[in-house]
């Protein structure tokens, strides 16, 4: 390796907020994910695409701690978090949304947002028993933060509705807002546009672009190619549990292995 190459490699490592190395999950003899490696660069939206059953969601779930990997490492800001429970990974600044929406349906939109930040004063038994005076000031500042998000995402009308009464698209939006309440460093989106009407889908796209401008790093699994094209750079293609290709959308499109995977997958 020349010194220039070495320099490039080390700056790439610094730029990568999340570095996945040889991550694998097998169920018995079935390899859902057969050792994937990729980097998620800081401040960009990385797309994770591939035909059904490629292992995208499993990979995402392993990164977030919802599924324990069989082997491999997940470096989040340099710390290997592979195999950690999801709440510990979340506390390291990783937020996510789910393929099936995960709203707290018996709570209002505002409450969903207020619940999100970790480590609130009134969120322990001791804090709760100490009473309102102990945690009220913090709640007021969180309420202000929630109000800003609600305004930014144009959800004021729904602020005090039960999350369970929202439409599918509004739930997606709520999940993203809830994740943002935790002030994450990286946001994992698992098919954020699935089942969303086109108008709301366009709005979600706009929001994601704004968030990218604000410097938020994102990793998104997405089926809608036009969305990936508009939002994602780089794009990682998975098929049959492996990373097939990686690059810009243009590079990916001209890769015959990718075409084969999609046509045969």
């Amino acid at each position, binding site marked *: 390796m020349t010194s220039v190459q070495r320099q490039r490699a080390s700056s790439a490592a610094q730029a990568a907020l999340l570095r996945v190395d040889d991550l694998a999950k097998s169920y018995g003899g079935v390899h859902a994910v057969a050792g994937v490696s990729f980097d998620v660069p800081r401040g960009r939206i990385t797309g994770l695409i591939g035909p059904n059953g490629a292992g995208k969601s499993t990979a995402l779930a392993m990164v*977030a*701690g*919802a599924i324990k990997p069989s082997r491999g490492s997940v470096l989040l800001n340099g710390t290997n978090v592979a195999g950690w*429970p*999801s*709440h*510990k990974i*979340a*506390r390291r600044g990783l*937020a*996510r949304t*789910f393929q099936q929406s*995960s*709203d*707290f*349906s*018996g*709570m*209002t939109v*505002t*409450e969903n947002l*207020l*619940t*999100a*930040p*970790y*480590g*609130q*004063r*009134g*969120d*322990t*038994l001791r*804090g*709760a*028993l100490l*009473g*309102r005076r102990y*945690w*009220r000031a913090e*709640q*007021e500042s969180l*309420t*202000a933060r*929630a*109000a800003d998000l*609600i*305004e930014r995402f144009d959800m*004021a*009308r729904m*602020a*005090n*509705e*039960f999350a369970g009464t929202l439409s599918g698209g509004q739930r997606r939006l709520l*999940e993203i807002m*809830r*994740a943002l309440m*935790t002030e994450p460093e990286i946001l994992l989106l698992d098919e954020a546009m699935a089942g969303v009407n086109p108008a709301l889908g366009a709005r979600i796209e706009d929001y994601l672009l704004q968030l990218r401008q604000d410097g938020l790093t994102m990793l998104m699994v997405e089926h809608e190619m036009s969305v990936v094209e508009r939002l994602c750079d780089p794009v990682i293609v998975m098929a049959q549990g492996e990373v097939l290709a990686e690059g810009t959308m243009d590079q990916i499109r001209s890769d015959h292995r990718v075409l084969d995977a999609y046509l045969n997958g």
Partner: protein
Amino acid sequence: MSLAWSFYIATVLVYLGVDLMACWGLNLQYGYTGIVNFSFIIYQAAGAYTAAVLTLGPQTAGSFQQYVGGANLPFPLPVIAGGIAGGLLSAVVGVIALRRLRSDYQAMVFLVISLIATAVVTSDVGLFNGPAGLSLIPQPMSTALNLSLVGYRWFYVGLTAVICLIVYAFVWRITSAPLGRSLRAVRDHEQGAAALGKNVTGLRMTSFVVGGVIAGISGAVLVEFISAWSPGAWLYQETFVLFAAVIVGGTANNAGVALGALLVPVAFLEGSRFLPQFGPPGLIDALQWVAVGLMTLVFLWFWPRGVLPERRRIIQLPGQQQARTGLQRPVDYEKTAETR
């Protein structure tokens, strides 16, 4: 009012107080956190037993009943110890049942634990005196006060009311705090809560153990009143009466649950005493269980949110005008929690 009625009403009021506490404890576990605790009654029984032996005094040789750890503690201490016993037992059970298992499997584990506990306590006479249990438990402060039989009953009603208020304040602090919200988040979407950094198992344990403490306290209050404890009085069916009360009243609504405690164990079960006897002996008792089961089913089917459903907690956001929704008006954040 005749003395007999006065005696009866005071007794029913103490039972109501015990059921209120138990229902608030179960509601914290089931209504707020989604833990289907079919073993609730055993923590109540453990609290009751502990309070009983700590009131009975040290065991004397040749006594007609045997028990473990007898002592003679003054009044509030046996009740507090009962709460601790309920909490400790639920911590042990919680460590086994609350990790890794899905909530439907947890429910099965809890039911089985309840059945095992009854079988063990009833069969092993050396342990807790078998089916005979304990009797002649002195009533707190009865000798010092020197009240009439009925007068003491009414004194105990007051005592129960005070303990009820303390328990309610305790539960209210939890459910109105951010902790209460986190518990409901765990109930509504476990993985979603974990993805926000919530320690789901820890939150479940907290709710489960606090519920166990409340169960223990309620059992202790009951046993000090009725002066007797036997395993046959703490069977798994009793848990279902409490579940019926919580479901009928309204899960995750402390006021609704209080209404449920009034309607199911008190109004319904006590009310059926006044029915004319018919059929073979024991038929009405058996029909009571059938009715409680049917009531639960009917509510789960038609009114799953109960008579007083979980309320919507309206939070006024700074700088925004919100439309009034129904009867609920927006209020300041600090005034929101637990107001209807």
